[in-house]
């Protein structure tokens, strides 16, 4: 897959009082992700071509992907595909990139979501509402030791757009 052909559609930047290594660990390990990502477990094989999984609290694979760029603790790109049946076929693959840069003695974390085709803006509302909740929790966890519970659910307009595209929604 040629990731240079992917176009960014959602960017979220957040500054965190932590080291780049701490931010990398929080983004890539289940021990941390369960605390800020609604109990979901991130599993990463830390090498290009390695597997990336976000596991739901019931143990099922919610998101799966492949590691495309792996430069700890600076840059990680993974394909990031929700496992709903027919979803990748309808939307194409999603690429998520984390850039971790020093900013004074803090860290600037930039998350970019990119796709290989242009989609209805309503489809992107899922990421645009999800990332601020996930990364706000990650920041709180690293700065205070605890992430507040933030309720997350798929936005109605995203579900409606998927339905229009003929994707069968789970549940």
């Amino acid at each position, binding site marked *: 897959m040629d990731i240079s052909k992917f176009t960014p559609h959602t960017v979220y930047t957040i*500054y965190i*009082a932590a080291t780049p290594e701490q931010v990398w660990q929080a983004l890539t390990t289940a021990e941390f992700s369960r605390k800020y990502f609604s109990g979901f477990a991130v599993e990463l094989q830390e090498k290009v071509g390695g597997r990336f999984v976000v596991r739901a609290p019931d143990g099922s694979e919610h998101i799966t992907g492949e590691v495309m760029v792996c430069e700890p603790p600076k840059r990680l790109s993974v394909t990031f595909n929700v496992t709903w049946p027919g979803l990748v076929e309808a939307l194409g693959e999603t690429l998520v990139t984390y850039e971790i840069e020093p900013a*004074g003695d*803090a860290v600037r974390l930039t998350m970019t979501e990119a796709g290989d085709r242009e989609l209805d803006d309503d489809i992107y509302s899922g990421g645009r*509402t999800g990332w*601020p909740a996930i990364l706000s*929790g990650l*920041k709180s966890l690293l700065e205070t030791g605890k992430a507040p519970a*933030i309720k997350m659910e798929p936005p109605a307009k995203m579900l409606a757009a998927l339905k229009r595209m003929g994707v069968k929604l789970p549940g």
Partner: protein
Amino acid sequence: MTKPEFVYVTYIETTAEKLWHALTDRDFIQTYWMDCILTSDWKVGSRMTMERYGELKNECVILESDPPRRMSYSWHSVFDPDMKKEKPSRVTYLLEPQGKTVKLTVTHENFADGSKTLPSISFGWPMVLSNLKSILETGRTLPLDAPELAATETAHMRG
């Protein structure tokens, strides 16, 4: 086609009242807004000015105020000749309590195509709002180097 606008959402463990105070108190704002001083009585129709190191950066007018839920003001960047020629843009704060947190949505919109102000504010808001979250949750601001980052903001604006 996406509208030329900037939207940023952050969840802060605090109350809407404390967040409203943090967004409107001159002395408190100065601690997290990269040394910027915001002066206003925050009443609808009033002026609000934003200054840094004695230089007037942005001239604003309060358009809506519904404490502690919603605030809106116009924004006119006057420190750069090209930006000064642009029509004023509009900032809206929306504060929505959710559990132990408040969801803060900052929408900055009404930009002309090719606006120079839009890339500048897109760089500035995440820093200011990350710092706001830190000070409300931990009592401390981020260990950023404010003068250096203020310079980066200007460099970024010049693109």
